[in-house]
Structures are given as C-alpha cells and as structure tokens.
C-alpha cells in the first residue's frame, strides 16, 4: 500500500495500544472498535465555504488521551477542521462526534470541554492579561459556583460564591505563573510581544481544564524555554486529548499517536503516526 492515498481511499484511525498496528479492511481503518471512549469520531466530514469545498471526506477516530497531528500545506483545510471540531463551523456532510456528542446538534454540550488555541489569541488588546483571563474564567463559570476549577462541573450551589470566586481567581493566578506571565499580568495585551501574547493565549485555552485541546501551531512565536515551560499545559505531558495542527512534520509525528495528512481539503492519509515517515508527510507540502 502506498503511503499516500487520497480522500475516501484511505481513512485510518488508531486507538490506545494499537497505535502501531496497521489494520487491514476497507477504508484502511486502524483498530476501529467503534464505541465509547473515542474523543473524536469523524466519518466523511465535509465543509464548504459557498461553492468552495474546504474539507471533504475526512474520517478519523481518536481515543481519549491521544494526540492527532494534522499536517498539510497552507489552505489544505487544517484550520477548517480545527474550527469544525471546536463547534465554530458546522460540518456540511458526514458525521462528527466530539467528546461523545454529535455536532452540530449537541455542540452546546461540548463547548465547556474544549480548549481552542487558534491563529487569534482571543484576547482583548486593551485589557491586561489578568483581566482577559478573569473574563474567560467568568464565561466558563469558574467564578460563579457553577463549576469548580478543580472538580469540573458541579451542581449550582455546591460551592459558596465567595469560595468559587477565590477558586477562579486562584486558577487565573496559577495559570499566569504556569505560563511565566505573572510579572507582566497587569500590562495591556497590546503592549506585549507576540510570544507573551501566545503564552497568555495558552493560559486562556487551558484555564477551564478542558478534556480536548485543539491547537493550531501552539508553539508559534515561543522561544525554546517558553515552549518547554508550556509542555505541561499543552504538550503530551498534559495527558489531554489533543489535535495538533503543525508544519513541524518531524516534531508533530514524534508527539502524535495518529497522523492526518490533508491536501487541498481532502484526506491524503490517516494512520498511526509511527507508520508515517517524514518524507511522505513532507510530500504534502510539495
């Protein structure tokens, strides 16, 4: 079997310890015991912008705790895929299930479990880093007793409001420290370098302890020390299910369980990352 195939010819999935086992069978699925436990299940997902098809025939299965590396050149559909998974775009065809919920019908159930780090940091330039994080903590219910920062969803009233507020603020401070921005937390975002803004964006995306991280070039603008410091939050060490869009082919494959190659919006390959050689993946960019 050639390493690169297109669209419906090849769709693969991997699960748990089977990641290095290539399964046969139609559509090239790997270890496809369809059932509970999959964090992401896509089957023939398509997305159009007007007449233009941005994403077509994407079939992926990713188990909880695994990492999916999404590779492809500019305009291949990587960001569109990430936005579909983030519930920001509706799939126009196919089946998409994220964290056990079907999109778009159950998108509202998924949102609290997603940490999205896209091209835009989603931070207000006129507010300080701390103000931005407090704002997002409030939106995610970390400061109103609806959700405990450490315990996930809790019933309303389970925490008294003052302690929830303190807990939310403590989470903000903890994240600021974790991304190395505690000292510059009171500077307006517009006064910060791109690397610092990216650190804050990481803090914002992980503030609510999401089960699924959707990361679009998460290490962009970060110096090596900062990239290393953020590993516990967005790297493999986080233990989260991750979808990682990257142009760093070798790095992406090294930290992924499953690799998805996109070319012109179509699935070029999807298989266990250990079975994708870097030269094949680099072929997506030619």
């Amino acid at each position, binding site marked *: 079997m050639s390493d690169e195939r297109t669209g419906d010819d090849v769709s693969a999935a991997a699960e748990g310890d089977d990641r290095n086992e290539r399964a046969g069978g139609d559509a090239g699925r790997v270890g496809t015991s369809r059932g509970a436990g999959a964090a992401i299940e896509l089957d023939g997902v398509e997305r159009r912008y007007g007449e233009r098809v941005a994403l077509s025939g994407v079939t992926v299965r990713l188990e909880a705790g695994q990492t999916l590396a999404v590779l492809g050149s500019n305009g291949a559909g990587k960001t569109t895929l990430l936005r579909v998974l*983030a*519930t*920001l*775009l*509706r799939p126009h065809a196919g089946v998409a299930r994220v964290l056990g919920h079907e999109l*778009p019908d159950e998108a*509202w159930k998924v*949102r*609290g479990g*997603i940490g*999205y780090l*896209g091209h*835009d*940091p*989603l*931070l*207000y*330039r*006129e*507010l300080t880093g701390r*103000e931005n994080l407090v*704002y*997002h903590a*409030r*939106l*995610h*219910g970390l400061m*109103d007793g609806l959700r405990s920062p450490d315990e996930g969803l809790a019933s309303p009233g389970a925490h008294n409001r003052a302690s929830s507020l303190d807990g939310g603020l403590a989470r903000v401070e903890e994240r600021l420290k974790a991304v190395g921005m505690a000292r510059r937390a009171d500077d*307006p975002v517009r006064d910060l370098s791109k690397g610092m803004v990216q650190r804050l964006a990481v803090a*914002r995306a992980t503030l609510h302890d999401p089960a699924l991280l959707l990361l679009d070039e998460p290490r962009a603008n970060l110096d090596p020390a900062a990239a290393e410091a953020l590993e516990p939050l967005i790297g493999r060490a986080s233990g989260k299910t991750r979808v990682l869009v990257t142009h760093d082919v070798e790095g992406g494959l090294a930290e992924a369980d499953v690799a998805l190659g996109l070319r012109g919006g179509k699935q070029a390959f999807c298989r266990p990352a250990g079975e994708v050689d870097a030269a094949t993946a680099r072929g997506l960019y030619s």
Partner: protein
Amino acid sequence: MIRTARTILRKDLAIELRTKESVPAMTLFTVTVFVLFHFGLDRDALEGDLASGVLWVTLLLAAVIGVSRLFAIEREQGGIDGLLLAPVDRTALWVAKAAALFLYLTILELVAIPAFALFLLGPDLLPALPVLILLLLAANIGLAAIGALVSALAAETRAPGLIVPLLLLPLVMPVLISAASATEPLLRGDQSPEDLGRWLGLLSLYDVVFVLIAVAVFDFLLDD
C-alpha cells in the same frame, strides 16, 4: 444568562473607558451637527416640528456611530469566537451589547440635550424636560435592541460600516416618527396627554416587539 451578560458588559465598558472610541465620537458628532444647523440655518432658535426633527435625526445618526462600533472589537480581536467557545447562553451577548448601547446613548443625551438647548432651542427646555427624558429613554430601549441586532449582523459581513446605516435607519423609522411626533408639541408647549400617550404607547410597543425579535433570533444570527 444575566451573570454572563454582566461579565460581557463590564468588559465592554472597561474597554470603552480605555479606548474612548464610541461615546466621545457620538457626542462630538452630535454637538458638531447642532453647530452646523445653528449656522447653516442661520437661526438661533428652532421651534416645533423643525426643532423636533433636527434633534431626533441627529440622535439617530449619532446612534449609527455607536452601533457601528458595538461589535467592531469582537470582530477585530476574535471576541466572538471566545464567546462561542464558552458554554454560555449566546443571548447574553445581545443583552450585554444592547445594555452597552443604551448606556452610550444615555450618556450622549446628557450632553446632547443641553447642547441642543444652547445652540438651537429658543424657549426654555426645563418645562418639557421630564417628558422629554421619558421619550428619550423609551427611544433608547428600541434603538439599543435593534442596534445590537443590526451590529451583530453587520459584523459578519465584509463592510459593516456600510451595512449598519443601510439596515438600521429603515428599521428605526418607527422610533423616529413616534419620538419626533411626541416631541414636536412638547417643544411648542402644547402637548396633550392623549397625544403623548399614543406616541409613547407606539414607542413602547416597538420596544417590546424588537426586544422579543432580538431574543428569538440572536442565537441563530451567531450560528455558522
């Protein structure tokens, strides 16, 4: 939802206080237009329908500036995505934006009405002031409700600055007609309670209808 709306409103007001984009622009525009009318008409005092028309058309055009900026920061800095990713009732965004616009309009009028009296109004404004305040508040509710809706709609287009006046002005025509018709006798000093009640009733009906429409459709407006 109210808690989320309060969070968004607090953020919007903090940003407005720092950038001073909307309210100062709306206020400066309004005062400038009054000065232009003052010299353009070459009159120190307007009365009745002319005074009423100048006041309300100027306030509506100033509202266009506020509506144009209402969602601009969300569009420019990805704020809408941040909100759409949060597990919150999206109607809270409309509530917050409408509340912000209502506040901006009210602050604008605190300056605009004295400026109007100074540049264009002959008779003393004080006797008409209580009823005028009532009319202004009723009009502000309608403008805020439809303004937040139009602003969200325009933010999804490529030319929001063009779309806002094209959509907003026809939609707020009932506000202009009701408010100007109620203000005209007020500024002449012969307002009848029946007349005032009729126009205030129409304004209130408009407010209720557009608040209900906005609450019903706003969620779909943000949907992809």
